[in-house]
């Protein structure tokens, strides 16, 4: 292998075909123009673009972040060469319907390709990911005029898109958004306010930037029920040309990671001429935006997996080639040193990375697959079932890769030893990139509140019941394949324990004790992450065990899968019990703690 492979092709193919059987999606009418061949050709192009074009520029882009000069952001020159190639690949509108210029590619295949591109150069791909999300918002809620003027140019990559939600005083708390929108007789609104942390909020890659902005129409009710969504271009079309729309860049954030992807402070309407066009219904902005946020959360999960994956591949190669020390059993100093992978503790770290990375690949692709089924399965019940799982698993798909991925990235630094702590080597850069994933698109804390406070208890726990059914069938499949029976038993027990704890906490909430119910929501989220990934490892173990009996040549691959499954189920899953006990017992150290006692 010439360079870092970013992800294991064998593993991605295993998840797509052996675990999820994505080829069967082509039987659904929506995907009938596709086949395994179109999937393979697209993945091939993405893999090569990622390895040959994106990855080689990663370090340079990280070392020289975007600059703000004279009110305009200049991105790294390498990005100007990469961007048109990413656009040409067709990632932006890949999963969108043909009538809006998309290719109706299943999300699961699009996500697999995205993993490579993200692992190659996260910053470079992020411009397109946000554009896709913003374009989709216009597709769903925009008027015909907005779709024609903006969406089409965004899907073609000519213009880019952003989501402009956050304000200095309103980050996680979007109900406190203050940007104002004043209606005009001409039909548009005049906006006035400040937005912060706007990723891709300015750049010199595209001819225009279309901001999807949350703002409050004059006289709107307070809180989340008074927020509307607006399309606010950097340049607005007027009499056949583009003129400035009074959107100014007032600052550039100096970030520790994703350094090629500029994050800016935007000032809207300083001169009273910032025009915005209402998207969807007035006061429904947050509800509309949630469509994009759910997609964005899954995308962040992919970022996390990709960032952990590329670092895992780097540390794996390093461990195989770095000679250091001798086996514990024979310390003969005249013998040559062994590569560090020969040491059990290094294999512990590598196997933990493998369990997190490949568990994460299975997780994000499973969720993307559920999105395909929720949208396009033939039977309404199948669509509803997939939607229930998708809703339940979204916070997990966002948080597991971010949280466990960070640990995995730290292990990549650890395996590199002193070199890993040096900026001469790349693992520290990926560690910095990874940290954002537990912060943006709803922090881990927000995801915990969302999971326990809304999704797990919605519809009397219907999502959780569906998950338990899935766990039951994976357990049966594992037993039948001859997997160690202790593993399915442990995962089933964990599923029952999570369900029981959920009921107890829901009861607490219903009795009026919302604080008590949600005190340990982050621990609850962690327990749910462990359960879901254990389920996916059990499924992978069942397929690997069956493969072991059938296919001698793939033995090393399947043995590796079984070791990783064993690692996760035997060393990670037991933590679920401890986390659930904290939730149930309401351990109250930080509940009681007061600000002045710190």
């Amino acid at each position, binding site marked *: *292998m*010439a360079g870092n*492979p970013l992800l294991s*092709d*064998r593993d991605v193919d295993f998840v797509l075909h052996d675990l999820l059987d994505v080829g069967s999606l082509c039987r659904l009418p929506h995907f009938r*123009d596709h*086949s395994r*061949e*179109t999937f*393979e*050709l*697209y993945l*091939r*192009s993405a893999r*090569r*673009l990622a390895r040959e074009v994106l990855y080689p520029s990663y370090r340079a882009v990280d070392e020289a972040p975007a600059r703000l000069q004279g009110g305009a952001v200049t991105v790294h020159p390498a990005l100007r060469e990469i961007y048109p*190639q990413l656009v*040409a*690949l*067709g*990632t932006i509108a*890949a999963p969108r319907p043909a009538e809006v210029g998309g*290719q109706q*590619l299943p999300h699961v295949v699009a996500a697999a390709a995205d993993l490579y591109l993200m692992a190659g150069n996260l910053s470079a791909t992020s411009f397109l990911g946000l554009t896709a999300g913003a374009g989709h918002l216009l597709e769903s809620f925009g008027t015909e005029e907005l779709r024609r003027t903006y969406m089409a140019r965004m899907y073609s990559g000519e213009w880019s898109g952003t989501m402009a939600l956050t304000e200095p005083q309103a980050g996680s708390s979007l109900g406190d958004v203050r940007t104002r929108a004043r209606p005009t007789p001409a039909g548009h609104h005049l906006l006035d306010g400040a937005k912060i942390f706007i990723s891709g909020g300015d750049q010199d890659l595209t001819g225009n930037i279309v901001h999807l902005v949350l703002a409050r129409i004059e006289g709107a009710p307070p809180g989340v029920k008074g927020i509307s969504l607006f399309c606010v271009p950097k340049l607005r079309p007027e009499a056949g040309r583009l003129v400035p729309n009074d959107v100014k860049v007032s600052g550039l954030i100096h970030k520790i990671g994703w350094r090629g992807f500029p994050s800016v402070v935007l000032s809207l309407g300083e001169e009273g001429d910032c025009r915005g066009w209402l998207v969807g219904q007035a006061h429904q902005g947050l509800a509309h935006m949630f469509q994009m946020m759910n997609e964005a959360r899954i995308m962040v999960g992919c970022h996390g997996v990709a960032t952990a994956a590329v670092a895992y591949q780097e540390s794996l190669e390093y461990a195989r080639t770095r000679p250091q020390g001798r086996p514990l059993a024979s310390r003969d100093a005249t013998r040559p040193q062994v590569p560090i992978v020969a040491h059990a503790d290094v294999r512990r770290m590598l196997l933990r990375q493998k369990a997190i990375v490949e568990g994460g690949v299975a997780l994000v692709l499973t969720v993307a697959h559920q999105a395909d089924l929720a949208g396009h399965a033939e039977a309404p019940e199948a669509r509803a079932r997939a939607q229930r799982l998708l809703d339940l698993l979204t916070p997990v798909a966002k948080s597991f890769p971010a949280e466990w991925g960070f640990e995995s990235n730290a292990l990549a630094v650890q395996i590199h030893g002193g070199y890993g702590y040096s900026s001469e080597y790349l693992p520290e850069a990926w560690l910095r990139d990874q940290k954002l994933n537990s912060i943006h698109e709803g922090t881990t804390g927000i995801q915990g509140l969302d999971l326990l406070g809304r999704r797990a208890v919605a519809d009397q726990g219907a999502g959780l019941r569906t998950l338990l059914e899935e766990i039951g069938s994976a357990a049966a499949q594992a037993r039948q394949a001859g997997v160690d029976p202790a593993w399915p038993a442990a995962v089933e027990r964990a599923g029952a324990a999570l369900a029981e704890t959920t009921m107890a906490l829901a009861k607490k909430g219903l009795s009026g004790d919302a604080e008590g119910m949600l005190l340990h929501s982050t621990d609850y989220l962690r327990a749910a992450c462990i359960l879901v990934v254990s389920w996916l490892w059990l499924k992978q173990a069942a397929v690997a065990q069956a493969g072991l009996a059938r*296919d001698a*040549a*793939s033995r090393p*691959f399947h043995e590796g899968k079984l070791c990783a499954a064993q690692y996760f189920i035997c060393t990670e899953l037991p933590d679920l019990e401890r986390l659930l006990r904290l939730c149930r017992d309401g351990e109250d150290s930080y509940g009681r703690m007061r600000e002045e006692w710190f």
Partner: protein
Amino acid sequence: MPLKILVTVKRVEDPESKIKVKPDGTGIVTDGVNYKMNPFDEIGVEEALRLKEKHGGEVVVASIGGDKSITEIRSALAMGADRGVLLKHEGALDPLLVSALFQKLTEQEKPDLVLLGKQSIDDDQNQTGQILAERLAWAQATFASKKESLESEAEQKKQPGLVLSADGKKMQVVREVDGGVETLEVSLPAVVTVDLRLNKPRFASLPGIMKAKKKEVKEIATASLGVELQPKVVVKKLFEPPKRAGGAKVADVPELWKKLHEEAKVV
């Protein structure tokens, strides 16, 4: 002056996969091995597309192999080629046979130019293009390259490296030779084999992949072409090169001589 160009594409093992020889030496372990279009052929496809973009015409891609070789044809169609031909064949072939089959196809298709990779990266024989030209009695130019670098403006603008004369009857080919490049002119129709530094091939885009599904791929059974399909070169056995033994220090010249004489048997 529109050009009709025939480009050959071969399905080969991806060199980034771990290639292992089967214990019995009859072939390689195919499990876990990815396949791709021969990279030299990909450069041929790219050059053909650039020539077509400049001069107009048609790009036909052809492969010899089993059903799976259609994927490589589709890959070229997804890059932008117009149609494909699969000469359907299972089993071993050698360059003599491959060139004989392409000769038949060339006679059917009557292109102005046949582009081939200078060699395929699986067994690196570097013979098919040359033998094909000889069989057709056409001009040939091998190892086509260009003077400009792959970072040059000409490359950024995706200009073809092969230069068609104004009357459309000749083609100028810059070819790599030991110690530099030389420029040849061939009369059309001609066979040109391409080298690595001719261009940077484009990636197949998703819209291109979807369009390729609707393009024609004709299948022709090799048995129907009137070529005696008995290879003259047969692979008897595959084996890994012997592992290099470590070096050793010797105490003095007599010991060195002894080792060279008795172990290495070179003196």
